[in-house]
Each structure stands twice: as C-alpha cells, then as structure tokens.
C-alpha cells in the first residue's frame, strides 16, 4: 500500500499558482526527497498534506485515507518555521506535544526519556526552552516530530541552522528510523544532502513536478557522461560551446558536461594543453546538475 499519494493537487494564492496538478506516490520504508529551489512549492505541498492548507483541487491520501486526526497521529511533522513555547520547561512541553498526538502519559514518559538521551538533552529536561541554545531547541523540535513513533515523518529543511556535529546526529537518527520501517519525506533545497540520503526523489519547480522516481535509476539514465576534473591553471576550453554544453566550476574542481557527440577523451586532450591535470574521472551527473538541467529544459 502506498504511504502517501497526491493526485492532481492544485493550490493558488490569488493569481500565483503555488502548486499545479501535482502527483506524488511515496512507498513505505524509504527516504523520499521532495526537492526544489526556494519558492518551488515544497512547503505549500507539505502544508496541504498536513491539512494546514486546503488544496483548491485534487486528492491527498495518507495510508490510503484522507487526512483525519487518527491519521495525523501516525504522521510526524517538522515545520520549516521552527518554534516552541519559550517559557515552558522541556519535559512538560514534550508531554504536551505527545498529548496532542494522542499519546498516553506513561508511554510518552518512556519515549521522552529515550529521545532526550539519544539527543544528549537529558541534563536539560527541567530547563525552560528559552534557556537552551538554538541548536538544542532544534533538536528538541526534532524529538517532538518523532516522539509518537510515526509511520511517516515529514521533515521540512531539517538541517538548516545545525552545526556539522548535529547535522550528522540528525542524519544518523533518520537512517535509524528508516531501518525501523519509518518512511521519511525530506524536503530540502540542498541537493548534496538529498543525493546521499534519498532513495526516491521528486523535483518540483514553480509548483510543477519536473522529475521523479528512483534516484539510482534517474542517475543511471543520464549515464556516466560527466567529467570531474581537478586542475591548476586557466581552463579556457570550458567556454567552448562546441565541446562543453555546461559546467560547474569551483576554480580547482569542475564538473563538465560534454556537448552531444563529443568524446570525453577529446576534452581530456584539450584540457591537457591548457591546464595541469590532477585528476580526471568519468562519473554519473550529480543531482544538482540533473536538477539544473531539468529545470532549464522546462524553461525552454
């Protein structure tokens, strides 16, 4: 059974179409990336899934049913707009949020203990939220999302504002939960994170789906026709449109996409004339590249 399905979901605010005829299908036990640039309609889509906004048209089914309070109890949601009751103490706050999700007090106490331990916040359980650092507050909100052991967790930009140590911690927890059979929808505009974590992805741009499916298959379809080059010197060949269709240059590291019919070996020979080559590799295109290409194609 599909965990989540959207069919022809449309939402507009005044004259702006935020989401247009969106179809989504999320299976169980995977991490599903809902990807797109800022303003693509990701948060609006998620808010409609959570029944915070009503779609103008279309149908949203969670676990095969329309949204209801018993369905919502099986979903965890980390909103992009973070915030907690600042004056409340950590433990009563978590109890309150657990109660909102229909949890019994005893069960909640046990889960709260487990999660505070897991996120190294046990020492802060009797402190007021406002006494916690921003990172801690964010971890607290992450706990609130998973507290009631949801089957589906929807995380809207979970990594923003976290330091590398905590990003790693959140990533670990996501993978643990996935192993336990929890499905996760990860909404982000950071392609590097999504590329490493997601099994399935859906790219949306300006409210429309431009690409979706299994990430491995998508990348395989594009083939190993990208070149990663580490170099020193002036890479003038990059602007030669006959050889290079597009590139992503970082000064010493560049991802090159040859124009149609151009043999990568040709590019290697040309590059060798202009720069010192430290590394040359044929790779699958990065998600970032696929995304940019797909969106550009849509614009044409």
């Amino acid at each position, binding site marked *: 059974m599909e965990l989540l399905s959207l069919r022809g979901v449309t939402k507009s605010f*005044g004259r702006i179409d935020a989401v247009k005829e969106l179809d989504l299908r999320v299976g169980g036990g995977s991490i599903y990336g809902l990807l797109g640039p800022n303003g693509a309609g990701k948060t609006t889509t998620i*808010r409609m899934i*959570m*029944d*915070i906004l009503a779609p103008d048209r279309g149908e949203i089914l969670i676990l095969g049913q329309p949204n209801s*309070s018993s369905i*919502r109890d099986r*979903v965890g*949601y980390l*909103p992009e*707009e*973070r*915030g*907690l*009751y*600042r*004056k*409340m103490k950590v433990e009563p706050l978590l109890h*309150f*949020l657990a*109660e*909102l*999700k*229909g949890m019994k007090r005893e069960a909640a106490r046990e889960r709260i203990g487990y999660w505070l331990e897991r996120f190294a916040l046990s020492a802060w359980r009797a402190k007021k939220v406002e006494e916690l650092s921003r990172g801690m507050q964010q971890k607290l*909100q992450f706990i*609130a999302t998973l507290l009631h052991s949801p089957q589906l967790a929807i995380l809207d930009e979970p990594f923003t504002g976290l330091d590398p140590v905590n990003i790693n911690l959140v990533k670990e927890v996501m993978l643990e939960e996935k192993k336990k059979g929890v499905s996760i929808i990860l909404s982000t505009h950071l392609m590097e994170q999504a590329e490493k974590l997601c099994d399935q992805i859906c790219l949306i741009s300006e409210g429309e789906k431009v690409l979706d499916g299994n990430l491995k298959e998508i990348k395989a379809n594009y083939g190993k026709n990208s070149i990663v080059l580490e170099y020193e010197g002036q890479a003038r060949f990059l602007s030669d449109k006959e050889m290079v269709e597009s590139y992503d240059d970082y000064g010493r590291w560049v991802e090159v996409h040859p124009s149609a019919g151009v043999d990568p070996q040709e590019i290697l020979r040309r590059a060798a004339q202009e720069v010192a080559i430290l590394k040359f590799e044929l790779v699958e295109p990065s998600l970032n590249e696929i995304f940019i290409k797909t969106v550009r194609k849509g614009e044409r």
Partner: protein
Amino acid sequence: MRRMKAVVKREYLTRVRKRTFIISTLAMPLIILAVTGLPILLMSLKSEKPKEISIIDQTDKLFPGLKAALKDTTKGGLSLYRLSQVAVPLGELSTVRRKLTEEVNKGKLDGYLVVPSDVFGKNQVQFYARNVSNFRVNDDLERAVSQTVSHFRLSNSGLDPEKVKKLVKGVELQTFKVTAGGNEEEDSGATFMITYILVFFLYMSLLIYGMMVMRGVIEEKSSRVVEMIVSAIKPFQLMAGKVLGVGGVGLTQFLIWSLLVGGFSLYGRNLVSSFAGRLGPLSIPGIPISLLLYFILYFLLGYFLYATIYAGVGAMVNSEEEAQHLQMPLTMLLVIPFMLMFYVIGNPNSGLAVLLSFIPLFTPIIMFTRIAVQTPPLWQIGLSLVLLGLAIWVMVWIVSKIYRVGILMYGKRPSLPELVKWFRYG
C-alpha cells in the same frame, strides 16, 4: 476532544502556576481591603489622643453647653476633646489670641475657638488651628456650637428646647428594594455600591482576560510554534482550547476572591468593627447569590464574545506593539458601556437602557447593571442572552476563518480587503 483538552490544560496550568497570577490574585483583595480599611484604621488611631481646645466665650453663656455637646469619648474611655475656657479681660482679645496662637504653634494646644458676643445675630464663630482639614473635628465643633446657640435662643424665647427638638424632628426616608420574588429588603445606598463594584470588576475582567487570549495567540504566532500545533489539531480546536483555558483562569480567580470575601464577611466583620470603634455600625453589604450567578453568566458570555474578537486581532498581527493600534477600538467597545452604566443605574428601564442591553457587545455590562439595580422582565433577560449567544456563534464563525489563515501569515498587517480574502480562504 482529548486533544483540545490538552490545549485547555496547558493554557490553564501555565497561567495559574505563574507567580504573577498567584500574587495578583492574593494582592487584589488586600489592596481593596487596604484602600477601604486603612483610612478607618488611621482615623481611629488618631482619635485616641484627646484634642486640646481652648474656647474664648465672649457671650459668657455658651461654654457649659459646648462642653456638654462635645463629651464624646473614644473606645478607650478617654474624652475626644479636652476643652478649657479662657477668660478675656475687656479689650484684651488680641493679646489673649496672640498668646493662644503661640501655644498652638508650640503644640501645647490643638486649636482654639472664638465665640464672639454677636454670635446670636451673625451666626458665626471662628476656629483657629494648625490643622483645619480634620473634617471630623470641624463637623463636631460646628454641630456643638449650632446646637448650643439654638438651645439658648429657644430658652430665651420661653420655649423648652427638648420639647421643640421633639416637635421639629425630621422624618427619615427608608429605602427598600423590591425584588422579583416579592421580597422587600432594606437598602441604604448599598445597591449602588455593589453594582458599581461588580460592574467595574466585570469590565476589568473582560478587558484583562480578552487581552490575555490575544497575547497568547501572538506568542504562538511570533514564536512560530503554531505550525507544529496545527499539524496535530485543527486551528479551531487550538483557538477554542485557548479561550476555554484562559476563561478557566478567570473563573479560578473569581472563585478564590469569592472565598476570600466570604471568609472576610464571616470573620472580618468583627475585625473591622473592632477598629472602626465608635464610628458607628459599619455595614458590609451582602451580595445576593443570584446576582453573583448572573455575574458569572454575563462574564462567561461576554468573555467568549470578546476573547474571540481578541483572538482574531492576535492572529492578524505579528507583535504586541502592532496589536496596540487594533486594540484601541476594541477597548472603546468596553469603555462605552462602562461609562453608560451611571445612566443605566439611574434609569434602568428607560427605552435607551433596554435598547443598549440588547446590543450584544454591550449586553454583558449594561444588562448586568440593569439586573443589579432592578430586575428587568424575564423576557428581556432571555432575549439578551439569546442575542448574545447568537453574536458569539457568528463571531466564532468569522474569527475562526480569519484565525486559520492569520496564524500562518507573517509580514504586513492585512488591509480590510485582504481580511475578506482570508475569510474566503478559511
């Protein structure tokens, strides 16, 4: 329902556990007690020491009469006034007065009274003292002199002062309040006092608790916690839970106050009369239970109406500073009926008062005032409740739509057309 209960519980507990709530709840009766009790206490303390007053009686006939008229004593059995007659040799008045003035300045004397020989014609005496603002002393002296002078005149005309006093004795107007049950209760201005105090409390409570709801909405919105909450429960449940929880805080406060007032009127009466002393019987008017029930009823209904509107205002703005502009007209809606209360107390059944009591925004204060002064026809109470209930229902319907959209909108405060749009989205 269970989820809304969680919201109600949180709203209620976080507020009643706050130190400010406990302090203000306990401090309020103390402040009222202090404001009313302290002057009585101070006055009775002051009067413990007898006042030394010299009297220059140029008629040479009034001093014994004055002494008899000012023989009041304190509770401790001491005289309130110690009077001494000062003889004035002919033509020496200014010298004697200078001497007495000096004594007043040194504090040996509290004051002196000059009764001129022409007092029977001009009807004037002079009192010199450092403090002439003690109205009790002034009143006592004036009463004593008037009484003595008129006694003297009557006797001079060959009449018996005691007999005349009996003959011209005034008639007292006793007032009785006729209530719906056919009972007649003696009333001496207590109705006005009770009405004023209760309506004042009603007005303050509607304002304070309405604003408490608004602040709660703004807090949830500005801290961004609201999106997390409405992903678990319906925005309407959040709003309703908040209104109910804060309302419970209000009822708790009333309950505590009622218990304190109840305890006070049982045990405190003795306390007050013990230090009120000879100031006469001090009546603590009893408040009829039925009136208290009406108070709770109109507070709750008025609160539901105003708290809903305040919740809507909270959802429209981003901060409390922004809310202040929108609050102004809302506060006026409460101030206007409060000001009209004085008219309504005087004319509880005039056409205007009846009309005003049917306007739902005014009903809580105006109708309650009318009930407190003179029980209106039952159908009028009924109609006012129906209209108020209807207004609450309509307001909840409108505001819940605006609220639903507003709590997730950040940025500019909406214009009126935008509000209409929000209403349509909701």
